[in-house]
């Protein structure tokens, strides 16, 4: 499992390829969704002409966006029917409001209905989100629970693949959604954590975490660290083609025998080996939890 998962990121630097690559991070949500689907198959759902915007932001004098920050597209991946939900980080930090969240939840529900009818529709979620949109607070939290329910139900039939490319990362309730995915792909620029650094500093104090210490934060929750300790499956370069191919490899592996979020005994044992009274360095955790002597 490890070898096939690390090829793109750990190959020898190939500067020609590096310079020729198309940055995934620099693409907007629509460009990302298009890059993930088989060429020529992209079909947008609930586009701008549907005018499904947040009903809550205007009440707070905040400008809305016609897609509420989520692009949904159908098409195929390796010839199989697929739906991609791409979160647009440029709108409200990729936060989940009632409409943006409902778009993701509903697409998972419809993909499930397809699978129950024998149509093997697969789902990809491109996470780029701070979590709940605080201006829609409880409706954001509620819809994230519905996204969790959708992923757990769908992944019994087909893999649900998540991507955290950066630069916003994936936080809050959506970090749970990411880790419910059958397979999780990240770049070094991607971050995956439950509590944003600012929130930890607010709730636990600056002595717990200085949110301005960017280097420390990437060491703790950056894509490379997450892959090294097994919380992300595949580390890729910021390269649209590499991400598209990692997604295909994840689908080719099929539904895991046991999803990461179901590996209860393993993780209880891993935690039991941690002494909370001693300092814990990110590198030391790689030794403790790492998948061997790689990297």
């Amino acid at each position, binding site marked *: 499992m490890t070898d096939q998962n690390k090829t793109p990121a750990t190959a020898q630097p190939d500067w020609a390829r590096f310079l020729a690559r198309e940055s995934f991070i620099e693409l907007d949500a629509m460009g990302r969704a298009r890059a993930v689907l088989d060429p020529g198959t992209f079909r947008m759902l*609930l586009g701008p002409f549907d005018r499904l915007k947040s009903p809550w932001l205007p009440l*707070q004098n905040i400008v809305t966006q016609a897609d509420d920050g989520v692009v949904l597209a159908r098409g195929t991946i390796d010839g199989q029917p697929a739906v991609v939900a791409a979160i647009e980080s440029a709108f409200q930090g990729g936060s989940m409001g009632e409409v943006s969240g409902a778009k993701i939840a509903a697409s998972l529900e419809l993909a499930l209905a397809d699978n129950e009818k024998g149509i093997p529709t697969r789902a990809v979620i491109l996470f780029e989100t701070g979590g709940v949109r605080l201006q829609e607070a409880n*409706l954001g939290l509620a819809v994230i629970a519905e996204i969790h329910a959708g992923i757990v139900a769908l992944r019994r039939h087909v893999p649900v693949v998540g991507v955290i490319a950066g630069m916003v990362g994936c936080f809050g309730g959506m970090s749970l959604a990411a*880790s419910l995915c059958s397979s999780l792909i990240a770049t070094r620029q991607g971050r995956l954590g439950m509590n944003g650094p600012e929130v930890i500093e607010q709730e636990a104090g600056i002595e717990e975490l200085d949110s301005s210490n960017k280097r420390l934060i990437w060491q703790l929750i950056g894509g490379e660290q997450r892959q090294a300790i097994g919380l992300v499956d595949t580390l890729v370069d910021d390269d649209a083609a590499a991400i598209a191919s990692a997604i295909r490899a994840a689908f080719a592996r099929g539904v895991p025998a046991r999803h990461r979020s179901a590996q209860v005994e393993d993780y209880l044992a891993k935690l039991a080996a941690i002494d909370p009274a001693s300092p814990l360095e990110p590198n030391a955790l790689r030794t403790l939890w790492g998948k061997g002597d790689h990297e």
Partner: protein
Amino acid sequence: MSDTVPFESRGRIWLRALAGTEGSPSFGKDSVLQADVALGDHSARLLAVVPDPRNRFPRARNGEVGLEEGWTLAKAVRSVIESDHDGARRPIIAIVDVTSQAYGQREELLGIHLACAAAANAYAEARLAGHPVVALLVGKAMSGAFLAHGYQANRLVALDAPGVLVHAMGKEAAARITRRPVAELDALGEKIPPMSYDIKNYAKLGLLHALIAGVNADAPTPADVAAVRQVLIDAVADILLSGKRDLSTRLNSPAARVLRAASIEVRRRLAEQWAGPAAASGT
């Protein structure tokens, strides 16, 4: 033992009130209590996350869902699924009084997000396996902690009492992140129901199956306990009657049709567009 950390909690009070015992630490974890209780014809498993002043993870001593709490909840719920695999599916009642997920550098490093996801995963699996799952909100139902412990339930029921609240983020942090004064957040909550920290406003969203009035949340009388027990019995019966194992009832309530009209519209239009123009013209 620290004397600054409370031991008693709403979770502990209601588990004791309903079960008639203190409950036992779930798989040896003192901050996750379990007990069994008769609910009508069913024997139900109660689960609660409670403060543990001696918790070996300091950031999870006040009733937070921490690393071991998340994974222990997952184990507790999965053990019910496994033991009922060949028989009647027991109801599972999540008694919700969770102040937050555990905030800390160590928690992030060790994957608090995955621990919370594991608990949510287990509750969702229980629901899909046919266990009636009810979340009983007796105190705080905050953010990721509620996502882990309760929000995957078939039905949500809440006490209409001071201190019972659902929210995405503590007020101080929400004020900082949205760059608004706390007073402004309070005022907005009165105008915009999803922003509110008041359970009565939360009820307007249509997500609650029942809001239970007239109950003393801190010192329940026998009549209070009987009333709550009856609500739980009714909720379990309603789940079994519906035959549904998903969360669709949250969108079918009269209140949801008003406040979550946009959620319903998204689903209606997406279903229309899902199969595409070619398929649509073929029907």
